[in-house]
């Protein structure tokens, strides 16, 4: 355990598993949230994000695994552990027939907020979520964005150390999304936040760290810089103007060291373009030198950088694609075999 305050672990989940009948929804997920951190849980729909969050908030028990909130075991001492969590589920748990003020007073009573400071706490929550104007309206009559904010107000009402928000911006318009993101960023100042979403830019906008979950398993967990470094393979786009036939160019290029594959791209004007994939390190000078040696006019030489979005997609579809390629290979092998 580190002694510095900034790295105090507020949530520590180890080896979380959740099985629904035949469906293994969450497989061996580890999750750590430190003080003052905003962690983004990213993954496609049905990846197991919500299930993970439900386990972290004690709504469902993990089939196996351990969850410690602020050092307290959630399964052994649920009441104590839950006191330091604020949770906004996918659908805000608001009673439509209550006003926002009534609702928050009720939540305050449920969360053991002492009577003397209850009013103060409710006022603060209303203010932080910009709900003062609608405090006395029925929640059922509020727009989706405001209902979502009432849900967030409920989650931060008792000033919990950990705020867990499940897809807080789903179904909102762009302006509301921005407002909610601002609010989450602000929450990050004095709460630790776990946020789930299937939208990458959202995580980029507000989170310090990202954990990507796919089909119940963690496929990546680190900062964005680390994510950006995870380019699957270094790729270079090169364009030459030359009379030499394409086949010859490709043949020459392939002689270079460290090249994994070369793909022909559509030519632009008279320039022949190729996508050159290196096996480990990008080597642009070698390509330039080669062009120089053979007298090809070099028109284009750009490293193809993958956006975070692409890296994300690669992470999620990576395994699946490999699987399908193998299948295709197997099929073609069979065809060949039958042809013979």
């Amino acid at each position, binding site marked *: 355990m580190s002694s510095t305050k900034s790295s105090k672990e507020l949530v520590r989940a180890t080896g979380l598993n959740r099985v629904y009948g035949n469906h293994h929804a969450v497989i061996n997920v580890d999750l750590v949230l430190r003080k003052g951190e905003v962690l983004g849980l990213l993954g496609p729909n049905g990846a197991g994000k919500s299930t993970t969050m439900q386990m972290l*908030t*004690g*709504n*469902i*028990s993990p089939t196996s695994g351990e969850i410690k909130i602020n050092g307290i075991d959630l399964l052994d001492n*649920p*009441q*104590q552990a*839950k*006191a330091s*969590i604020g*949770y906004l*589920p*996918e*659908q805000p*748990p*608001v*009673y*439509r*027939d*209550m006003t926002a003020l*009534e609702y928050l007073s*009720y*939540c305050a*009573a*449920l*969360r*053991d907020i002492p009577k003397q400071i209850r009013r103060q706490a409710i006022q603060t929550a209303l203010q932080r979520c910009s709900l003062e104007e609608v405090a006395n309206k029925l929640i059922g009559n509020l727009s989706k964005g405001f209902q979502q904010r009432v849900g967030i107000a*409920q989650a931060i009402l008792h000033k919990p150390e950990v705020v867990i928000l499940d897809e807080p911006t789903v179904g909102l318009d762009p302006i509301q999304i921005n407002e909610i993101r601002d609010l989450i960023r602000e929450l990050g100042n004095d709460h630790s936040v776990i946020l789930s979403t299937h939208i990458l830019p959202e995580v980029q906008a507000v989170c310090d760290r990202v954990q990507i979950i796919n089909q119940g398993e963690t496929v990546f967990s680190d900062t964005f810089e680390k994510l950006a470094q995870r380019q699957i393979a270094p790729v270079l786009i090169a364009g030459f103007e030359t009379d030499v036939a394409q086949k010859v160019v490709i043949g020459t290029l392939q002689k270079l060291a460290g090249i994994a594959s070369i793909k022909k791209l559509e030519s632009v004007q008279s320039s022949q373009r190729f996508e050159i994939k290196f096996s480990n390190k990008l080597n642009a000078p070698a390509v330039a030198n080669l062009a120089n040696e053979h007298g090809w006019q070099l028109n284009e030489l750009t490293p193809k950088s993958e956006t975070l979005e692409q890296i994300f997609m690669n992470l999620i579809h990576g395994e699946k694609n490999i699987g399908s390629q193998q299948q295709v290979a197997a099929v073609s092998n069979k065809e060949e075999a039958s042809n013979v």
Partner: protein
Amino acid sequence: MSKIIAIASSEFKRLFNSPLAWSVLAILMFILALMFLMFIDEFVQVVQPQTATMENPPGVTDLIVSPLYLWTGIFMLAVMPILTMRLFAEERMNKTLTLLISSPLTSTQIVLGKFFGLLLFIVLVVALVSLMPISLTLGTELDWGKIASSAFGLFLLLSSFAAAGLFLSSLSSQPIIAAVSTFGLLLFLVVLYLSGSSQSNSSELFVYLSHFSHFLPFIEGVVDTSDLVYYILFIVGFLILAIRKLDNDRLNG
């Protein structure tokens, strides 16, 4: 304890936020008042002249007040499921149960809070129904002991309905299913009483199991501890089942 009170008072208030409680009370009172009038009319027109010469005639309390409480119990067979279906099934459907589950509460606190909230409503129903016989004091003498025991018996009967409904509501996430199954269970217990007390196939066990058989002595003015114990066991049993169900939800939900 303060959390139980918070849940109970919020449940009670929310009943009146919707038109549900108002319309239930209004219709119940309207129908019971009609029956009450009918009973009085019959008593004044038919019974009183006939029994005027008897030495110890049955009084107003026996002929008007007791049937009124009995009929309230019968009507509530149909009304209580509508009130109990909200407790868990509707919260599940609206996904608001998460609020209670993720708050620092035990399942016992949640179940008791909801049950006590409904008890408040039951007290209100019993009080409103009791106003009708009490109004008779304007014209006649009443047997107060009998009224008190009837009211107490009605309270116990309705509480047992509530506990059974609460449990069935905790099983389902469809309010309608919760209501129908509660109605079915309550009616089944009535049928048990009817079949148990029928002349061809009488069964003491069936009569004992039925909640109505324990209500009737109260109406007669008899407060028997064995009846009291039956209701307490019935209520506590269903509440414990509901608590177990909520705990179990986290494992299987």
